[in-house]
């Protein structure tokens, strides 16, 4: 992959805090342009420390990183990044609009971008209200608006659905997905795997500060083919003939065949030839949670 296709690229990025705690250990992370990349891991795995290093809030102990083509924290790079790390933080006595005006001034951004950003996160009706009176969901949306105001190449969002009610989670998820399809690169970090499963194109698993796995979400979730048919005995015989006995398992009354979707047509033909009545044949998927547990338990 050409380096310019990567918006985030780290090499052996390491952070050891004073006191000796190793928060991030030789992290090699690559986020491609235009994708929604999910960094998942348990609490304390090093996700937020990684994000803080990427935006220059903390300095790595060793290793290097390039973010939007610049070293972390360089003003030229920060202008291309919109970030909300941990909870959004704004001035409680200012209105939502004035908080964004402060951000616009800081970033030398035209003030008209404030209205656009407020509209994008559906906060225009509440823009005059004091930030201190906002609900958690509104605060999160204002945080995203502040990140969007720069029209960034890269959005870094840390636990964006944290504390939101179900409606707020749906809205935030929709917003992130729309940003991903609008050409932004999104690096999103969360321990809510069900949310990440609905948002991300690719994901990395971080545990004890190390990136222990990285994959396309669709590939990782693939769990073979799920087949139901009658009579079951004849289905098994036909499947054993085409895929081998070791590739077949039975779960909840269905046959799970360890095969990819390319083999589906061949299996279908074999079942038809065997005179089986096929009631269901589809790719089986695991949840991201199952994938995550398999990866992390395998490491422990």
């Amino acid at each position: 992959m050409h380096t310019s296709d990567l918006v985030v690229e780290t090499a052996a990025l390491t952070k050891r805090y004073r006191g000796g705690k190793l928060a991030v250990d030789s992290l090699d992370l690559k986020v491609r342009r235009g994708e929604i990349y999910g960094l998942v891991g348990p609490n304390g795995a090093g996700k937020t420390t990684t994000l803080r290093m990427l935006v220059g809030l903390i300095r790595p102990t060793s290793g290097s990183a390039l973010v939007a083509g610049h070293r972390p924290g360089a003003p030229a790079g920060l202008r291309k990044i919109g970030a909300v790390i941990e909870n959004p933080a704004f001035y409680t006595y200012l209105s939502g609009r004035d908080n964004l005006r402060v951000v616009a001034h800081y970033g030398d951004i035209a003030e008209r971008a404030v209205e656009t950003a407020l509209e994008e996160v559906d906060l225009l009706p509440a823009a005059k209200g004091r930030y201190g009176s906002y609900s958690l969901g509104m605060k999160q949306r204002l945080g995203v608006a502040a990140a969007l105001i720069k029209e960034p190449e890269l959005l870094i969002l840390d636990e964006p659905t944290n504390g939101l009610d179900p409606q707020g989670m749906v809205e935030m998820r929709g917003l992130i997905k729309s940003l991903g399809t609008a050409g932004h690169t999104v690096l999103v970090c969360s321990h809510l795997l069900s949310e990440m499963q609905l948002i991300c194109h690719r994901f990395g698993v971080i545990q004890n500060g190390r990136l222990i796995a990285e994959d396309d979400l669709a590939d990782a979730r693939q769990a073979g083919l799920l087949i139901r048919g009658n009579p079951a005995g004849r289905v098994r015989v036909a499947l054993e003939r085409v895929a081998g006995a070791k590739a077949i398992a039975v779960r909840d009354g269905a046959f799970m065949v360890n095969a990819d979707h390319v083999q589906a047509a061949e299996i279908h033909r074999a079942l038809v030839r065997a005179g089986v009545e096929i009631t269901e044949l589809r790719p089986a998927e695991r949840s991201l949670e199952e994938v995550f547990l398999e990866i992390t338990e395998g490491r422990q």
Partner: protein
Amino acid sequence: MIGPVRGEWLKAWRSPYLWTVGLLMVLVLLARGYGLDWFLMSQSPATLSPANIASYKQALAPAAFAQQALGNPGGVIWALEFVVGVLIFGSEYGWRTLAAMLMVGPSRATVFGAKTVVLAGIVVLLVLLRFVTALASSLISAVTLDLPFRLPSAGDVATAFAAACLIAITYASFGALLSLIFRRASIAYAVGLTYLFVFEDRAFGVIAKSSAQSLRDLPTGFPGPNSVALVHNLGGGTGSAVAASTGSGQAALVLAVYCLAALGVGCAILVRRDET
């Protein structure tokens, strides 16, 4: 730099906390600089000695407004100036907004510079507010107590104003530095106000009366006694043993060194430290 300064100015101008500090400064000046003296002069002049009456008339007259604005409220005003420094720098930690601002784009040195420019601007405005309040109060006193309407020379006013600004920015820088060191406004207040009211207000006064020369000289190295000296030498305040022995030039130099040192160390901390 202009953008971040505009951002900082917007925050400061809309801050109810800074407006409260400004109001407190006016109240302190009115109460300690004019209110009590005016009340005594207007309500019960018969209870005052001729010397007291002369002294009050001199303090309340327009000719003394610059000295009143510069020094009469003394340490309380300086404590409020320290609070301004904490509010502008330390509040960011309370709201967790510093990291958010650092991620927007400007370099950390630019962020520090913008905050310092706005801090200086706010401090100058607050000093101006004191001078305007003192002028208005002295004119009202002149009308109600039949005092002469003679104003001090523009040079005297300018010198007093500059001295007040130097003292104010020194204390505000002290507040900024403690906020950056402790990353928490509450601890900065605790440490700073303890220093101001225990050491500068009490301990240095006691030390200055010591029989040992080396101990007597010790306070001359600290901002409080030099602020008192500067005020005293420009005709304001009540003075002290240290004030009597310290020239205006030396006092101004010591304050300027403290101010620059506080800002320099503060900038180095902000630029170099991890913001977790």
